[in-house]
């Protein structure tokens, strides 16, 4: 019997600040922050990364990642990212946004930063609800999904249909990389990590605009236990928001 020793194979990434987060139990933000930190560590870009936090549950995201941080007004993060990246083209500028930030109030900024091909990375956390303000309907809220402002479910004749951000941006010429993933299962989370790493690597290589949408759990907003929330992502969200790569000009698998 050979002598055995323990080797750490999974630990806290260095760029993830060692402090408890304010996120609810089972919230997808925590997983996505961790993946971002891993990608930042693997690329060795912590010292030249600037993170833009949105308005939403992740308004304090900059407390959890050991990088320069900035708060943006609701929806304006892609414009703030544009200003930062144009001044500092060799820094890694990450715009981290939720449903309302990206697709409601910030729709103009989202589309135009993508259309200009700003060499930034946008991480879109899609949990089909407005979490921070107590659970209102989001542009990505599903049909028949009940929220505080769609108490009878999202009725298309009243409120339209959930918006597919990746497909919308995929109509534009400039974006370099667009992928949708999820953090509801281990397999999906590993795929999400690869997508986020690729998106950041494309920015480091100066390739162009990269967009990663991550389907995420909001157990508190949805009124279910975290494991149920994870299941709901797969059962209800993925059919409307299919996972996969919509565009990858870098052409890698």
């Amino acid at each position, binding site marked *: 019997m*050979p*002598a*055995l*020793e*323990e*080797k*750490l*194979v*999974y*630990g*806290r*990434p260095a760029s*993830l600040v060692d402090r*408890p*987060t304010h*996120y*609810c*139990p*089972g*919230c*997808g*933000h*925590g*997983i996505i922050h*961790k993946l971002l930190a891993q990608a930042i560590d693997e690329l060795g870009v912590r010292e030249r990364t600037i993170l833009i936090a949105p308005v939403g549950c992740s308004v304090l995201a900059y407390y959890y990642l050991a990088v320069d941080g900035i708060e943006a007004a609701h929806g304006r993060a892609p414009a703030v990212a544009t200003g930062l990246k144009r001044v500092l083209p060799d820094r890694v500028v990450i715009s981290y946004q939720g449903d309302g930030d990206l697709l409601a109030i910030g729709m103009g900024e989202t589309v135009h930063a993508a259309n200009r091909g700003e060499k930034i990375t946008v991480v879109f956390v899609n949990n089909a609800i407005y979490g921070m303000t107590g659970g209102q309907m989001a542009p990505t809220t599903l049909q028949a999904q009940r929220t505080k402002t769609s108490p009878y479910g999202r009725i298309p004749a009243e409120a339209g249909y959930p918006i597919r951000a990746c497909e919308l941006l995929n109509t534009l010429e400039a974006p370099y990389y667009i992928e949708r993933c999820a*953090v509801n*299962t*281990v397999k999906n*989370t*590993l795929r999400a990590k690869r997508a986020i790493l690729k998106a950041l690597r494309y920015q480091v290589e100066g390739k162009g605009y990269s967009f990663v949408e991550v389907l995420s759990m909001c*157990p508190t907003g949805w009124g279910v*236990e*975290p*494991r149920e929330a*994870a299941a709901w992502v797969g059962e209800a969200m993925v059919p409307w928001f299919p996972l996969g790569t919509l565009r990858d000009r870098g052409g890698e698998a």
Partner: protein
Amino acid sequence: MSRGRTEIDRERCKGCALCVGACPEKILALSKDQFNTQGLPFAQCFDPDRCTACQSCAIICPDAAIRVMRLVAVGEG
């Protein structure tokens, strides 16, 4: 004989149980009568001998509360 070991930081754990659901060996569970200083139950491994160091728990953990150790032969880096 286990191939791995988890260290779950009970203070960071929020008792979300995503790891409990993710573990393929089904050897994790939330504590029954113990709570951390936040008043939350925390995840524990109740059958560590069956741990394979697959890291599913650590991967899905939203709070980076889990470290996973793999048992390797000495010198096997």
